[in-house]
Structures are given as C-alpha cells and as structure tokens.
C-alpha cells in the first residue's frame, strides 16, 4: 500500500498538469476546448454533421466571418477597436458586385480597387485615431454609421441592377464555390490569412510593433517604436481584411441585401473577446480570434440546423457567450494562481534518523566551536557569496547576488573590485587549466571569465528530455561545477522546475528535478549525464580524477559518478543519511573533501517529507513566508574521505556569523567560508593542514 502511495506521489499526474498549465499555449485552452466541445456536441446532435459535404458547407459559410474577426483582432491587439468592420465588409461586398458584375471591370482590377477601398476606410480610422488622437470607439462608430448609410443608399439606387446580376466568370464562381483539395476556396484564403497574420504579428517587425503598442504604448514609444504609424497601419490592415472578406462574400452570395454585414462588428468583437484577446490590447493571437468566431458561427448554424426558432437562437447564443466570456476572463486572470496551486507536487521521501549533532555526542558531527572565531573578510562588502575561490596569487574571488564576480586582493583582502559583471545569479566557481574562471549562473547557464576579465559563454543548453512536456533544454538553475583532468566541465543543474528563489518549493517536492551535465570544450557539446537527481548541488572531481562527487541537497547524500576507470559511467551513493543538507564539495589538502552543510535536518521537516499530502496542503493554504522549510539558518562544515567516512566537523555555534554555509575552500592552510545569504566571508586557520597546498596545484600540478 505504501509503495503504491509512493509511486503515486512519484509519478503524480499533477506533475503533468502543472507543467501543462505552465505552457504558454494553455492560455487559450478555454476557447479551444469550447470550439471542440461545440463541434462535437453538434456532431452528436445533428445527423450527417460530419459528412464531407456538411463540413465543406460549414467552412464555406464560416470563412468571411472568420476574416472579419481577424480584422477586428488587429484593431483590438493594437489597443483599440474597429467597429466599422461590418460596414466596410458590406460596402466592399457591394463594390465587388458593382465593379465586376454591373460595370464589368476585370476581376483583378475589381479586386485591387475593393481592397484599396477597405484600406482607405482603415486609413481614415487610423489617421483620425493615430494622428488626430480621437477615441477609437467613437471614431470607428462614426465611420460605421457613414459607410452603412452610404451602403443603404447605393443598394437602393442599384436595386434593379443588383436584382438582375447573374453569376460571372468561372474564376468568380471558383472564388465563390470552388474547392482546393476539398477545402472551399474562401476557407483556404482564411487559413492563409490567419497563418500569415499570425506570423506577421509574432515574427515580423511591423506586426510585433502592433503587439508592443497594444501592450503598452508608453513602453513601445520608449523602445523607439513609431506608435502613430503602427496604430495607423493596424487600422489599414483591419480595413483591407474586411474588404477581402467582402469580395469573397460577393463571389459566394452574389447579393447585397439590407442585412449584409449588419451586426458583424458585434459578432467579431464577441469572437475576439471569447477567444480571450484582451480588450486592453497586446495580448492574444489571431488563432484565438478565429476560434472565437468559429464558436459563434457553429452555435448559430448548429441551432438553425436543429430547427430552433430564430429569436431563441439569438438569446441562447447571447447567454452562452456571456458565460464563456466571463469564464474566460476569469481563467486568463487566474491561470497563474491555478498554476501556483497545482504546480508544486511533493513526493514521498523517507528518512532514517540522522547521526546526532549534539555537542559531546561523540559523533564526528558533534557541535564544537572551531568556527566561532572565524575572521570576517569583506564584512558588508559582499552580498551572498555562494561560492569562493582563490587564484595562484592568493586573490579571492566570489559571487555577488547582483550578478557580478567580485575579487578581493591578497594579502589582506580589503581591496574590493568587480572582476566581471555577467548578470543572473552567479553560484559555483572553478578554475580550469588555463586559469579561466568558470561560473555557474542561475537562470543563464555556465560562463567563463578569462584572466583578462573578458567574459565568454561556455554553454546555456543541453539535450532535451523527449518524454517531458516541459522544454528542459535551456539551463534553468546551473549550480556548481568542476573541471575533469581532460578539461571536460561537469556541472549540476539543481532543478529544472524551479528558479533559485523558489528553492524551497523544490525542497517541498523532494523530487528528482535536477541533472548532472557535462560540457566538452573540445567539441563544444553539452549533454545530460544523469537526470532525475534530487537537487544536485556541489560538484567535485575526486583527487584521482576518476569520478565526480555530487551532493544531493534534499536527500542529504553524497554520490559518486565514475568518469574513468573500470566503473566509468556508473554511479553510487557514497554517503547517505547525513544530518545536514549538503552544498558545495571541494578538495582538502589531506586527500579528503570539504563539504558545506547549508542547514541541518530537523525532525519535523523529515516527518513532513514523509507526508506529501501535508506539504501540498501547506503550500495551498498558507502564505509562502509561513511555509515550513529545511532549517538553513544553521549549518556547519564537515570533512569526508574517498571511502565515504566523515572524519570531522567545524561549527559556528548558533550560526551567529555563518548561518547558511554553502561553500568552503581550503587554500594555503586556511579555510574560507561562503554563504548564500551572508554578508561576509569567513576564514579560519587550519592547524594541521599543509600550508602550501593550493587547489590549482592539486588539479593541474605545477609548482
């Protein structure tokens, strides 16, 4: 039973759900599901709905409405509204009939003139709105009224001509009722238009500018976008697309009635809102507008086909739209909250009681005062020195939380200089053979700084896990690294699900979200070596260069991964059930390793780790500041050897100077101490250590 529960928590469907919700394409999930649901519902209710003929008819009748919705979407995405789309559509419909069938202009000329007419109408809207600074709603409303009135006049004036028109050329008929590969011509145009405008709005500069202006006019202006021209162009596009729809409609219907295009602007607006495009502008896609239009269209046509009376149809659609729009608005607004509640998926972790850390308990972990009088270096001159390292001239390098690498100059470390500024949150440090300083940067990847201070990128992506929904090819949280004798860089990515600031959430999950990754500078390739590791943190190449030691923080383990020798490619747990949460590992002068405990295990947290449901509820019910978390206010330093035996520990009782120890480095008889949240670097003298030992010699030899 318990193993079943464990398996459940290990492969919880919530995990999938959370990563699914995180996807950007989940935002239009409501209109998308609704589209599918409406379609399926009518497919069940209406016999022969799914026949080819029926589907073709649906597409044929939908296309122009979809286009008008696209036209509306343009104006809405730019932060405005275009109420004149319906009137421009109707007028274009008339013009196409008039120019082609009554006057007899050639079809291409007709086409150009009508689209030009739409563009001019759009230009009037856009000109007034962008350059005259009029309100979009009123401006386009006025244009709607004027164009509509003109339409009514001309259709009356040409009643007899309109009544006597007959179908035109075969090209014209093809536009109206032709099919390409079974898809009606006008639907094909809609598809091309939708795909084209989608790319226009997302990939092409003027289109992206429309989105930018819609999101924030001010920001766009500051970014150097010509806001007026962009707005103008959005309305021109809107008008031209409406006109295109009018031509296709003319070819299909060959009639110009008083009802043509009446209320289409309302339908288009409803489609846009239903599709979840924000009326405030800047948020949404063309696909959503088309989906919204499809829902409205299918509801109307479906209910007519079911034989429901006209008025009732209108009322039902009104209610459905109201509900859907309300729900959609809520969804778009609250998706983040839902995600937050669903995303964290704790797993079941069993702990044995750890060895005692009580003073005088006799274990190697027993509390002592060896760090009590640590000398403070760089006190209040550094913020969050997660890792520290010393070069061959004894200068001390560390990371700062503002994204820079800070150097303190030997011998007294009072002179502070910014060695390099990279950005992100720099964490683990290492020197390679050429004395390049390599650094893991949370949120960015692995970077390097040459001795001349120039910054270069080592890697920022690795192989993607094919079976996973979430794209994990980008490096999310590179944590610590070390360089193998052959120059390959091994580094840990602590979590692929959480950012550094959310480390506690990763802790709640206690799940294998992390990876061990190897970058080979010779080939420039990066590949994932081990995955599903639980917060792999510290990385250290063993003294013999045959294996990588890596620390799992939440599982309180030290692991060994063989990279050379007979066991190459296999991994094993070197030390299990440590009493503290492991952080960085570094070589010691006596052939052993220093390990930083970022915090100590607490019985209550261990208990909570056995209880995933408790943790889930905690995350949901109480605010983040109140969450129970691993006790990282108090840690210590321990030393272990290649056999996995812990030999000693160093403590700062009460964690007064060094709470949260994340890194320790030995250099020429001294031990340097860094902490993720500390305001200093500590230094203690090691009595029995080799006073000449330095890491660089240990790694790369030399004098």
């Amino acid at each position, binding site marked *: 039973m318990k193993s079943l529960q464990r398996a459940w928590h290990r492969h919880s469907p919530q995990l999938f759900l959370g990563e699914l919700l995180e996807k950007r394409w989940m935002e239009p999930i409501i209109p998308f599901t609704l589209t599918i649901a409406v379609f399926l519902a009518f497919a069940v209710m209406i016999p022969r709905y799914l026949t080819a003929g029926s589907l073709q008819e649906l597409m044929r009748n939908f296309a122009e409405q979809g286009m008008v919705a696209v036209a509306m979407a343009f104006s809405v995405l730019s932060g405005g509204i275009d109420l004149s789309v319906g009137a421009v559509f109707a007028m274009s419909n008339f013009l196409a009939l008039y120019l082609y069938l009554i006057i007899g202009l050639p079809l291409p000329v007709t086409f150009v003139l009508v689209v030009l007419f739409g563009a001019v109408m759009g230009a009037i809207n856009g000109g007034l709105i962008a350059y005259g600074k009029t309100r979009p709603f009123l401006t386009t409303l006025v244009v709607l009224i004027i164009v509509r009135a003109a339409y009514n006049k001309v259709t009356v004036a040409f009643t007899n001509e309109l009544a006597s028109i007959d179908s035109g050329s075969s090209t014209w008929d093809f536009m109206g009722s032709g099919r390409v590969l079974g898809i009606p011509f006008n639907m094909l145009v809609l598809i091309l238009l939708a795909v084209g405008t989608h790319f226009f709005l997302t990939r092409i500069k003027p289109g992206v500018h429309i989105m930018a202006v819609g999101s924030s006019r001010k920001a766009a202006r500051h970014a150097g976008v010509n806001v007026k021209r962009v707005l103008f162009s959005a309305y021109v596009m809107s008008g031209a697309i409406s006109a295109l729809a009018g031509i296709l409609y003319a070819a299909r219907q060959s009639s110009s009635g008083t009802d043509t295009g009446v209320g289409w602007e309302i339908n288009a607006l409803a489609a846009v809102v239903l599709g979840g495009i924000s009326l405030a502008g800047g948020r949404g896609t063309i696909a959503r507008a088309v989906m919204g239009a499809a829902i409205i269209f299918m509801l109307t046509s479906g209910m007519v086909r079911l034989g429901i009376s006209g008025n009732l149809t209108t009322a039902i659609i009104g209610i459905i739209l109201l509900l859907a729009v309300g729900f959609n608005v809520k969804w778009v607004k609250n998706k983040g909250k839902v995600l937050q509640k669903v995303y964290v998926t704790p797993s079941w972790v069993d702990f044995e009681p750890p060895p005692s*850390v009580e003073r005088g308990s006799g274990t190697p972990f027993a*509390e002592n005062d060896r760090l009590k009088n640590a000398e403070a270096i760089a006190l209040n001159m550094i*913020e*969050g020195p997660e890792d520290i390292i010393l070069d061959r001239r004894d200068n001390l390098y560390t990371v700062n939380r503002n994204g820079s690498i800070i150097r303190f100059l030997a011998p007294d470390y009072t002179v502070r200089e910014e060695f390099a500024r990279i950005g992100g949150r720099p964490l683990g440090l290492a020197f390679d053979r050429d004395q390049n300083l390599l650094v893991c940067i949370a949120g960015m990847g692995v970077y390097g700084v040459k001795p001349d201070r120039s910054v270069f990128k080592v890697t920022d992506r690795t192989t993607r896990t094919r079976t996973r929904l979430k794209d994990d090819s980008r490096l999310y949280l590179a944590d610590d690294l070390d360089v193998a004798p052959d120059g390959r860089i091994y580094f840990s990515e602590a979590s692929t699900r959480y950012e550094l600031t959310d480390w*506690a959430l990763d802790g709640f999950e206690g799940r294998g979200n992390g990876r061990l990754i190897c970058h080979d500078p010779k080939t420039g390739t990066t590949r994932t070596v081990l995955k599903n590791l639980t917060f792999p943190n510290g990385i250290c190449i063993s003294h013999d260069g045959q294996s990588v030691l890596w620390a799992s923080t939440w599982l309180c383990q030290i692991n060994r991964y063989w990279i050379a020798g007979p066991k190459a490619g296999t991994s094993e747990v070197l030390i299990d059930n440590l009493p503290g949460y492991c952080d960085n590992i570094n070589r010691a002068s006596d052939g052993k390793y220093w390990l930083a405990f970022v*915090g*100590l*295990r*607490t*019985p*209550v*947290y261990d*208990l*909570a780790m056995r*209880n995933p449901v*408790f943790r889930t*509820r*905690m995350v*949901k*019910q*109480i*605010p*983040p*500041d*109140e*969450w*129970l*978390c*691993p*006790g*990282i*206010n*108090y840690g210590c330093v321990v030393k272990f050897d290649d056999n996995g035996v812990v030999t000693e520990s160093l403590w700062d009782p*009460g*964690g007064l*100077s060094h*709470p*949260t120890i994340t890194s320790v480095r030995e250099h020429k008889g001294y031990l340097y101490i860094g902490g993720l*949240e*500390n*305001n*200093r670097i500590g230094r203690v003298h090691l009595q029995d250590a080799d006073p000449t030992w330095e890491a660089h010699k240990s790694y790369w030899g030399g004098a």
Partner: protein
Amino acid sequence: MSLLGDIIDRVLFPNRELHVIPVLDGAFSPNQRLDQARQLGDEIERPDDIVLGQDGALYVSTGNRILRCTGDDFNKRTVFATLDGPVGGLACTPVGRLLACVSGVGLVALSPAGEITGKLESVGGEKIACPLSVTVAPDGAIYLTDGSRNNRPDLWLADLMENRAPSGRLIACNPSLGNVSVRADKLAWPLGVAVSPDGGEVWVAESWAHRLSAFSRAGEGRRVIVKNYTGYPARLGCGPNGEVWMAFLALRTQLTEFVLRERAFCDEMMRTVPSELWIGPVLDGRLNPREPTQIGRIKKLGIQKPWAPPRSYGLVARLDTRGLAVETLHSRVDGRVHGVTTVRPIGSRVLAVSKGRDCLVELPAGRGAEEG
C-alpha cells in the same frame, strides 16, 4: 477544493465566526518598546509569576520554589518556600497570606513565614491538577483557574497541540479556601484571571481560545470582551487606576494553526519528535539547530527580519476598564524579551517576567518615551 469548501461553509453557516489570525494593527501595532525594558537583578530560571506581598517584598515563582525578592531592583533574593511541584500563579490576600498554584497539588496557602497553612486540592471530587492562576477580590473571595483536565501546567504546549475539547475551569472559594464551587467549565487553558476594575466581574483570558471573557461575580452571566487575539493570552494583572495588563505567551502563526488542523501529522509529530522541536509556539525562541524553520525566518545577509513568522515573541498589552487594549509593548522576532507570562503593576512600576529569557524586567515608563 478548499475554496469550494469555504464557499459552501459560508453559505450553510453564514454566521459562523471565522477564527482567522487578526493582523497586528491599531493598539497592537508592532514596536520595540518591550526590548527597552530594564532587566532587574540577575537571571531567574524560568520565572512564572510575580506578586507583591503585604510586606513590600516581591514573590517570584520559579520551578518548585517561591523566591522572596527585596531591595531597589528586587535583586536580593531568598528562597521563601519550596513546594511539592512546579509553582505557577501567585496571589496575596489582604491578610498577608500568599496563595500559590502548585502543579499536581492545587492551591496552597502560605503564611508570611512560608509555612503551608491550607490547601485546596479538589472541587466536586475532581482533582485540581493543573492550577494556573489565582486572584483575590477586594472582598477576599478567591478565584482560581484550572487549565485542563488532561495536562499539567508544564505540558502547556502539548495541551495546545492536542487540540482537545476545552476542559479548564474557573473555581471560586472563600478566603479560608472553603465553600468551593466551579463557576465556569470547558475553558480553553484559562491562564489569565483577574477581578474587573469595577469589582463586579471576573475576567478570564483563555490562551487556546485567544479570547477574553467576563463572568459576572453575582450571577451566571458570561460575555466575551475580545473574541480573537493575534497571540495566546497569558496572565492578567490589575493596576491601581483601573487598568489591566495582559501578557501574551507568543503569537499565533499560520503554520501552527495549519498544523493544528492537520491532526494526523500533528499527532505523529507529538509522538515522534521532542516537544521543543515541534511546530508551535515556544517561550524562549533562542535558536535550536534542529527546530523547524519557516521561509520567512531565514536570515538574509546575516539579519533576522523582525517581521518573520514568530516562533517566540514578547507582547504585553494595557487594557482599559472595558477590557480593550489601549497600548502594547512588543519584543519582535529579533528582540530579547520573549515569552512573557505575567505583567503586573508593582507600586509605580510595571514589572514583567520573561519566562522565555529567564528574567524579571521593568517596563519602560510612560508613553512616547519609547521612540527616543
């Protein structure tokens, strides 16, 4: 799901009181004034209550003993009496007898020489095993509270975390410890007891119910004065001008309230983890490396944020004659006067004992002096 539950709950029980933790504002707005309190004399090991004797000496209960403190800062201390169990609440009768609550025993009356002159060990055939506080009315009537039928006073945390049905009592007797009666039952750890400034009511502060109630001395009436505090109220102390002082053991936290709801987890925690490492309020708040930590309590750049979720806290409040707080003194998360069990006006001064930090302190005088 929980949201749905909340909505259904709200619809079905619209009048149900929502016992959420109130925000510290109004008279309870945080300050650092309690940290300005001056420590009197040496440390006292886990002092619990103080009372001024008729002889002008200050009596302090600590462990199984009562200390008699004299001198300007009450720094000359002698053992006045040693009793059969841990001593809690103290009171002094108009005739100079000292009343002491002794865990597992009941109420013990002591002569000025420190000799036991009387005991009240049970009421209605039930032992008074968890006496918490005692007070004497101006007319000599004695009011005693019994915290719980399940736990003794030193197991206060267990009593809170067990979250059982309240079983505390308010017991009344005459000056000679006779004519004993239970005036109220089913109280949730009634640690504070005092006779109201007008003498007509007995005020009882229930720690686990976070409320202050008034019981009519003459009849049966009960009214709730304050129904929901941010902290766990402790003892009440009356001043000469009708003001009443209230101490708080600690503040409630969302995490503690959450764990109280999570019965299975809470029970397992109590069964398997030593009590000083439980999630829940503590008095001292000095770092125990293995205590549970909350995100907000993680030190940033070596600094403990004063607004972090408090595991321990120092808070005393001055109440007006209606029982409403008019002034509070705080020792916040980064402060040092935590776990105050008693605050009493002694002469012109107001003294408090910080059981958490083992000291007797004098509160800073006057209002406004604090901002200095």
